[in-house]
């Protein structure tokens, strides 16, 4: 009971905090920030506690059949006119994603402490953004899911346009509108699912037990997949991500790349594949061709870019490609790999963008050609960046390696020639990642220090907390993958079971 209450409070608490801060005058920035930080920390604590609880609960009773076993369930009638419910619950995948979000939101707040003007609105928006992301991972009702899903895009625009840098309005619009395009496709298919199921339900668990008409699935699955793939920046809908990230303030980049991009892949796993397994089996062997761009080619583009955020954005695109590959292969191992990569890349890219943001706030340039020798001046951030880089290129010991190898092994298990070929290409392209990461790190951190950077200082305590926390997450997942992997299995099993039907 307490757990259920706490679980609900994960998404309600940020909103309450925002409301609480409304009457505080904007001059009391410090108070506002502290209140928000405290709430972020509280949510993180709750998420950690619940994750541990849920882990032991799921160990106690393994999942059987195609019905997801949810814990901490709240189901209340909500929009009775359309039979939509307020239905939230937790299983391994969603709990871990919530935990990831809590970490990234908390660290995102920490890096935004010196955001400057309008911090009251900024923090409120972060909280709302957090709420929407939590909601996406928690809800098991399509309407509720969609409401949370689409909320986040416009928050992003406000934050990018208000607090971003460079072409902020352009970048923000590009991001928001492209994401809106994706959610438009999703919404249309949701209606289809609701009506075609014949049971007039929005409940994911109930819908999963119904076999939707195959002719419907044939066209609806690709649309739904692409709709979700937009936020995962799958080719050819990746174009929003570099411009969006580069214009966004640090916290938004962290949240966007770290968590929001996973919402798409989460949606594919949880909704598209779970509800339409026949369509998935039919369409994914064709859709997987799109991942070639992400997996094999995006890294090359990152090599050519000189702007730190562009590099990081393309790196995200290429890592997300692996998630898509894992999902598309539809084998038990590859799906688990995809889920692991979702987590891993969340921490990784948050760390990346946090480090990049810290560097940018000191050097006021993101062009790596204008930097050099920063390791001497900002060793802490530099080391964090290098660690992020290593984790990004799949160094064992960090989570990226675990996720990547699971995806490779999993997608190789799919026996069709396409998947074999793409897996081979994907494995061979891990070198390219190394090229751009080392090139960037070397160019930026090593060599001679330009005189104008002589006065910059290393990370403060808040920033150090951010970096250390994220690095610990990367390491933890990389060194002790077995519990996480088993935990994920418990929630992937029903999806796989449905795939067999």
């Amino acid at each position, binding site marked *: 009971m307490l757990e259920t209450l706490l679980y609900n409070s994960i998404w309600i608490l940020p909103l309450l905090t925002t409301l609480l801060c409304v009457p505080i005058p904007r001059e009391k920035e410090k108070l506002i920030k502290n209140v928000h930080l405290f709430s972020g920390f509280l949510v993180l604590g709750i998420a950690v506690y619940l994750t541990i609880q849920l882990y032991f609960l799921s160990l106690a009773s393994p999942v059987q059949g195609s019905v997801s076993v949810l814990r901490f369930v709240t189901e209340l*009638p*909500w*929009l*009775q*006119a*359309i039979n939509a419910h307020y239905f939230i619950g937790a299983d391994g995948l969603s709990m871990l994603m919530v935990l990831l979000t809590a970490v990234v939101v908390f660290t995102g707040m920490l890096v935004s402490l010196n955001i400057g003007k309008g911090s009251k*609105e900024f923090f409120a928006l972060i909280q709302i953004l957090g709420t929407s992301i939590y909601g996406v991972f928690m809800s098991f009702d399509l*309407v509720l899911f*969609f*409401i*949370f899903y*689409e*909320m986040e*895009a*416009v928050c992003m*625009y*406000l934050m990018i*346009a*208000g607090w971003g840098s460079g072409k*902020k*309005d352009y970048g923000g*619009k590009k991001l*928001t*509108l492209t994401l*809106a*395009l994706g959610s*438009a*496709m999703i*919404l*249309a298919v949701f*209606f*289809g699912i*609701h*009506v075609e199921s014949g049971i007039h339900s929005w409940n994911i668990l109930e819908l999963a037990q119904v076999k939707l008409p195959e002719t419907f699935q044939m066209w609806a699955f690709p*649309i739904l997949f692409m709709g979700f793939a937009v936020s995962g920046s799958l080719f050819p809908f990746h174009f929003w991500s570099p411009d969006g990230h580069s214009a966004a303030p640090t916290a938004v980049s962290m949240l966007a790349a770290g968590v929001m991009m996973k919402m798409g892949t989460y949606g594919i796993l949880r909704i598209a594949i779970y509800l339409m397994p026949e369509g998935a089996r039919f369409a994914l062997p064709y859709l997987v061709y799109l991942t070639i761009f992400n997996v094999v080619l995006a890294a090359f583009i990152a090599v050519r870019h000189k702007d730190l955020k562009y590099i990081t954005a393309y790196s995200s695109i290429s890592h997300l490609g692996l998630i898509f590959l894992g999902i598309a292969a539809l084998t038990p191992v590859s799906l688990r790999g995809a889920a692991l990569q979702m987590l891993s890349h969340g921490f990784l890219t948050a760390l990346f963008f946090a480090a990049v943001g810290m560097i940018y706030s000191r050097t006021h340039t993101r062009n790596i050609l204008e930097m050099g020798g920063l390791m001497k001046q900002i060793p802490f951030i530099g080391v964090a960046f290098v660690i992020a880089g290593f984790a990004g290129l799949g160094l064992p010991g960090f989570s990226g390696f675990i996720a990547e190898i699971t995806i490779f092994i999993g997608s190789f298990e799919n026996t069709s020639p396409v998947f074999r070929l793409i897996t081979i290409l994907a494995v061979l392209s891990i070198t390219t990642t190394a090229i751009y990461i080392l090139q960037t790190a070397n160019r930026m951190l090593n060599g001679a220090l330009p005189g104008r950077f002589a006065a910059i200082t290393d990370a403060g305590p808040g920033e150090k907390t951010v970096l250390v926390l994220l690095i610990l997450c990367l390491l933890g997942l990389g060194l002790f993958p077995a519990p996480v992997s088993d935990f994920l299995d418990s929630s992937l099993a029903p999806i796989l079971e449905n795939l067999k039907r």
Partner: protein
Amino acid sequence: MNAFLIPDLLLLLTPFLVIAIRIFTRNSKPAFIFANLSFLVIFVFLNRLVLGDEPHIFFSTWKVDRFGVLMREILILGAFLGVWFAKDYFDHRADHKSKLTQMAEYIAALMFATFGGFAVLSATELLTLFLGLEIATVPMYALTAWNKTDPNGSEAGTKFILMGSVATAFELFGLSYLYGFAGTLELSLIADAVAQNMHSPLLWISVLFLICGIGFKLTLFPFYTWAPDVYDGAPTPTTAVLSVTSKLVAVIFLMVLIFGPFAAIHSELIPFLSLLAAITLFVGNLGALKQNRLRRFMAYSSISQAGYILIALIGPESLARGAVAYYFVVYTIANYLAFFIFGVIGRNRSETFESLRGLSKQSPVLAVALAVAAFSLAGIPPLAGFLGKFFLFYSAAEAKGYALILFAVLNNVIALYYYIQLIKAAWVDEPETEPEPLAITLRQKVVIIVLMIGTLTIGVLPFLNTNIFRIVG
């Protein structure tokens, strides 16, 4: 006991009383207060009406059912907000135009227009239907040209009335064929006749003329051309009324026809309606892309909203009614929220996008309210506008109009683009010159806050939509 007639009779009476009070008082304040009180009374009466499932009929020509009461309440809400909004334009100059005069008459005209909506809702035969529509329309012409000192206003009025008359001619022509086809004016008898002879050319010609005629008032493609000019030229309160009350009456008219006499051919009308809806919302969205004047912008925005509303009409009756009713509640609220903000901005400046610049610094609350209004109109969850659109689509989904829904939601992206322009102007763009200070009255402040809270909450709080669907279903 015919208690169900009381609100209608009250609304019929009050315009006269308002004008009468104005005659006997020095300024229009008492009239304004009286009008507000009577709106309140009418609303309370409507709310207290206890109706069964069967409609109540007065002398076989005046019908009141639960859906009608619901729509009456929405009409009253719209009129009430319209009067409150108009008040400022009678108090001071705005948008670099002289202030309006003769408020009591303005209010009375607005009330008549609202009563026209009541009449359309109550119609059981074509004559009441037609008269109701005309009562709702004719005052609008006058409202448009209200500002006699403004050449744009009279130009807008001229365009509006000339085109409106042509549309009336279309409707009349359509009605005459329908009468010829069925030989009667009773809606229920016509429905029987339609069900018996579904492919009579006479019937379909009348359908064509009627839909084209009402398409003018509903600003459907390609009959929308008057809207940008008229919305732009009319006084701002009239623009608001046009985009809410007038549009609502037109939708009710269309629904009365489609789900009344034409119920039997509804399924055959679906392709036509779908096409109309799709093209209208597309064109409306495109037109709004690069606007600078706010009222013209709102004109295109409301054109596309009309397209969205039409989508609901391809669904089954009960869902369509609920969806339209709910949509109009949230649309009224969000639209008036936007207009109230424009009213505040436009007091010392022109009503253009440039005037919005720097708003987030001058008045963050206003800027937040603007964002809420814009996002609600764009249909972004969890704001009310999203759920409004959701219900519209839901209705269409029941008829398996997936392609139309997909097209509409993709169009939403374009819509989001131009609503973001609005927000961008307020939040991102820096003003070139120091903006004029804002003056905001207490009334405006209260209304804006209330409407904003309404927009934020009625989407996710279930009671309103649950009730609406229970009432109409």
